[in-house]
């Protein structure tokens, strides 16, 4: 790795001041599982790395009035084992469990996964299906936006120089939904997603129809994406195997996957249809079984 100046931030204020001082010359280091791999291979290093991994303010996980609030530095291993996450939004726990391996899950953070903005990330689809919002902090204050608005393109986000993604909020309205996540990789462990999918929904107990269904997809477009046409198709429609299959077909048709050495575009699209069908079935089962987290 090329050398850089390292600022070891001990508080949020300290980190934000360092970022404000160094602007675009600085990058934020959290778990390092993505950034350090990138820096080892990079021809040029940033002049300054601001290490935020010790900032306690970014490590909280708890339920508040606005919903489930997860600090950006909460690790994938912590999310996968959190009783609160497993109960209130199982899709996110399942996504966290499928990231990398134990060693990377112990280092990698939820905020880092999102800020990396790689299209094949696993937490993005789960959070997007749950209508998650992210909070960006800077010396000037905080601003909040839907996760969907945060992603601009591969490895590009709306995080400006001087800003840190500091927390993720899953709104209260999503916590009663049933949710599920599935991923297809070249093997079970330590695999990058060829495609992944998540769904969150309610089933009206009287009429047996889908309510506010959300479907989000990874690795099949330049950013994690919502399958809005499939969502509109399902909203208010009676739950049935046929409706789920049709929604899966619509969702797959909306994707724009790349072909690379891991999988062809056509194969990723096929995978998407299968994964969407499975997450919808699983979320419906959970809605009926009552284990999808009634608050």
């Amino acid at each position, binding site marked *: 790795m090329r050398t850089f100046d390292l600022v070891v931030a001990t508080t949020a204020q300290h980190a934000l001041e360092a970022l404000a001082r160094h602007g675009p010359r600085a990058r934020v280091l959290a778990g390092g599982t993505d950034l350090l791999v990138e820096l080892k291979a990079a021809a040029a290093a940033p002049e300054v790395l601001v*290490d935020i991994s010790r900032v306690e303010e970014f490590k909280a996980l708890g339920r508040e009035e606005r919903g489930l609030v997860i600090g950006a530095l909460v690790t994938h291993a912590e999310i996968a084992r959190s009783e609160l996450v497993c109960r209130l939004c199982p899709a996110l726990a399942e996504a966290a469990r499928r990231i990398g391996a134990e060693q990377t899950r112990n280092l990698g953070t939820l905020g880092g996964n999102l800020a990396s903005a790689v299209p094949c990330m696993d937490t993005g689809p789960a959070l997007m299906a749950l209508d998650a919002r992210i909070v960006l902090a800077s010396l000037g204050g905080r601003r909040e936006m839907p996760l969907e608005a945060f992603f601009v393109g591969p490895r590009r986000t709306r995080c400006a120089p001087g800003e840190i993604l500091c927390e993720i909020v899953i709104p209260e309205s999503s916590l009663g939904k049933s949710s599920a996540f599935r991923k297809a990789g070249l093997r079970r462990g330590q695999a990058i997603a060829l495609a992944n999918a998540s769904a969150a929904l309610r089933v009206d107990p009287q009429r047996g129809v889908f309510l506010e269904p959300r479907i989000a997809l990874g690795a099949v477009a330049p950013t994690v994406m919502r399958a809005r046409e499939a969502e509109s198709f399902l909203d208010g429609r009676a739950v049935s195997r046929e409706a789920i299959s049709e929604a899966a077909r619509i969702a797959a048709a909306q994707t724009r996957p790349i072909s690379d050495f891991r999988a062809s575009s056509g194969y990723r699209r096929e995978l998407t249809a299968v994964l969407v069908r499975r997450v919808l079935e699983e979320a419906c089962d959970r809605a009926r079984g009552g284990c999808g987290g009634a608050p």
Partner: protein
Amino acid sequence: MIRIAIRVNGAGRVAEVAPQTTLLELLRAKFGLTGAKSGCEAGDCGACTVLVDGRAVNACLMLAAQAEGREVLTIEGLAGAERLHPLQQAFVELSALQCGFCGPGMILAAKALLDRDPQPEEQAIREALAGNICRCTGYVKIVEAVRRAAELMRAELVPAARKVESSR
């Protein structure tokens, strides 16, 4: 250069390193602890696995500075003064290592598992070791050895007097 103070295998250590030094480079080059291996340098192979505050991590993906003040366990610190750790004992008894390059990482990843789950199912063992690649592909023996070590640890069957030397 920055000054790092950490605890390694129970002892306080201090070193001056360049900011970009990884924990793995600190352990190997500064402290001479060459049990943790440099494999892929990208978090894929697990050969550099060490425990930081009891959790398995890729030492190649952590800056030395991020380990400041933490407790690090490497393979060199696993055995007691008089005897091998049950995991090491089981790996020896079942010939779970071939070339041995993956061994330190495998054993430490397995230790982290057994510390939180003393009676793991085979699936849990395989999941805990998913980040450790054995290119001799000796996974069957490795999984058996972890299960055997779990039995040894539960039953405390390891003879207390067994010396490190006698197993060589």
